[in-house]
């Protein structure tokens, strides 16, 4: 049995957190993710878990570092400016190889920016954000159902690889109400966290969790181990959705909300005899570079559509590697492109007169 409910995106994430067996949530208010923090404050204690409204995003991510280091599933959530503050902790979590989940319901920037939806934290999420050579797994849901399912998956992936997994949605997905089906029972990925700080119980050698290695050779070994793990994740965990790309006049690369808008554009374009394909990365890191690279053999023109000034487009260009033109269309400031705007842009790059 499962339950279908009409629910806000942010709350669907909250329900996923609880059903994934996470019992430690540490938050700090920021729009447009507040419904998630609010939801956790009510339902986490009801589930016998811990909810703390921390004094800052810095404190919240470090509470996650402590709780997850102590062996529990733990998470925090925020929106763009708050995620910037968490970068210190994210780098430490990566360095210490602690499994943790961070949700970013993105708003527009830079600076305090605005509270409207954006996808302008792509660079920060997939290229680092914090200091040092590290990666996060980054999941990009595109509807309420995926907000739920990818949040559950985030905990499994984090435990599987001892990595930080970020769920990246834009503010519109967080705020939108949609039908979401909750499974009655999730079956969390089981792993023995024998490295965790639980107290030795005088039964084993001490565990200590750290990311500091003063000896260069020792630290290089750690870095090589991290990189080897990242190569496995790149090989095994890529997720994407490809629609209508073979023989398309143009393929749009888009994730999250812009992928949804693009699906409608595909129908409008078809009415005018233009075949539009869609490649939607679901994992932003690992980026589906092989699938994007293969587009060069399937279509003549590629365009990345984003709620940014052009971020993911850089990875698309790297994957295509100059074999086909890669264009970009984006809106910023919290604006969403309309279907008509995207269609006009498609016509422009295809050399057809916009109406």
């Amino acid at each position, binding site marked *: 049995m499962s339950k279908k409910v009409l629910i806000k995106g942010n709350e669907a994430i909250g329900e996923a957190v609880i059903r994934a067996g996470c019992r430690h949530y540490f938050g700090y208010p920021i729009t447009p993710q507040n419904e998630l923090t609010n939801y956790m404050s009510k339902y986490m204690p009801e589930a016998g878990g811990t909810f703390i409204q921390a004094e*800052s995003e810095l404190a919240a991510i470090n509470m*996650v570092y402590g709780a997850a280091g102590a062996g529990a599933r733990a998470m925090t959530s925020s929106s763009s400016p708050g995620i910037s503050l968490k970068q210190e902790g994210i780098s430490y979590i990566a360095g210490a190889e602690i499994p943790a989940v961070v949700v970013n319901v993105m708003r527009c920037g830079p600076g305090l920016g605005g509270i409207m939806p954006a996808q302008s934290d792509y660079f920060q999420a997939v290229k680092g954000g914090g200091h040092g050579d590290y990666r996060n797994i980054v999941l990009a849901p595109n509807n309420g159902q995926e907000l739920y399912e990818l949040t559950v998956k985030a905990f499994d992936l984090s435990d599987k690889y001892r990595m930080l997994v970020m769920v990246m949605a834009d503010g519109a997905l967080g705020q939108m109400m949609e039908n979401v089906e909750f499974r009655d029972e999730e079956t969390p990925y089981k792993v023995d966290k024998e490295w965790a700080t639980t107290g030795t119980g005088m039964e084993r050698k001490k565990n200590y969790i750290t990311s*500091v290695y003063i000896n260069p050779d020792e630290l290089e070994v750690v870095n090589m181990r991290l990189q080897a793990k990242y190569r496995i994740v790149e090989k095994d965990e890529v997720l994407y959705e490809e629609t209508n790309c073979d023989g398309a006049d143009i393929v749009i690369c888009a994730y999250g909300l812009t992928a949804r808008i693009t699906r409608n554009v595909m129908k409008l374009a078809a009415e005018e005899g233009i075949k539009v394909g869609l490649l939607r990365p679901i994992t932003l890191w690992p980026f589906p570079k092989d699938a994007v690279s293969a587009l060069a053999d399937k279509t003549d023109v590629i365009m990345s559509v984003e709620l940014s000034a052009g971020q993911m487009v850089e990875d698309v260009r790297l994957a295509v590697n100059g074999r086909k033109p890669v264009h970009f269309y984006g809106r910023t400031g919290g604006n969403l492109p309309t279907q008509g705007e995207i269609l006009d842009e498609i016509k422009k790059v295809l050399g057809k007169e916009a109406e």
Partner: protein
Amino acid sequence: MPERLHPKSLEDTTMHYCPGCSHGIAHRVVAEVIDELGIEGKTIGIAPVGCSYNNYLYFTFDMQQAAHGRAPAVATGIKRVHPDNVVFTYQGDGDLAAIGTAEIIHAAARGEKITTIFINNAIYGMTSGQMAPTTLEGQVTTTSPLGRNTALQGFPLKMSEILSQIDGAVFVERVSMHDVKHILSAKRAIKKAFKIQMAGLGFSIVEVLSTCPTNWRLTPVEAAKWVESDMMEYYKLGNYKGAELEV
């Protein structure tokens, strides 16, 4: 040969601290207290950023290293997962009273059932002797080369006095480790702080006036004297909260 009395909770290894530094003594006192309370197997410590960044190598129990100033937040996360364990942070003055002021204040305000050992040596040791939030007026450091001028650089923070104003902090005491007599009373305070946590009463902290001969540009003996003549003048020793609690 008399038996060598080495605390069980302290690794039998050489520490990296400078001669005359209080860290080694503070580590030993903490280890002795943990031994005496029989809590080695359920203790989880938080190592800070600063000279004692890797003290997980010196203690025998589980530990997590924390980012600068964030130890109380890390301890909060651990304690909420393992409420029956004993969780403590070990932090210096830059860590606790500058970059981590928010974390320590709010851990105290939440009444987190953790213990903090606060090493106040009035200087940033690890980074070569810069001015700390607890550097005394007139004290020469690498970033106050003419001596701390309060008109330009403000006043040293009295963290025990500040924290004792917070309802969630139930035990606050300032001690020193510059001579044997003071080390013994410091040990009593640290033991009580841990017992307060074990009794579930709330947040406990012991501020330890400590030496840094290297960065103070003094000999170990002169450094110990300076604690008594200058530091104790500004940072009054004593219990600020919880003296009446019986645990």
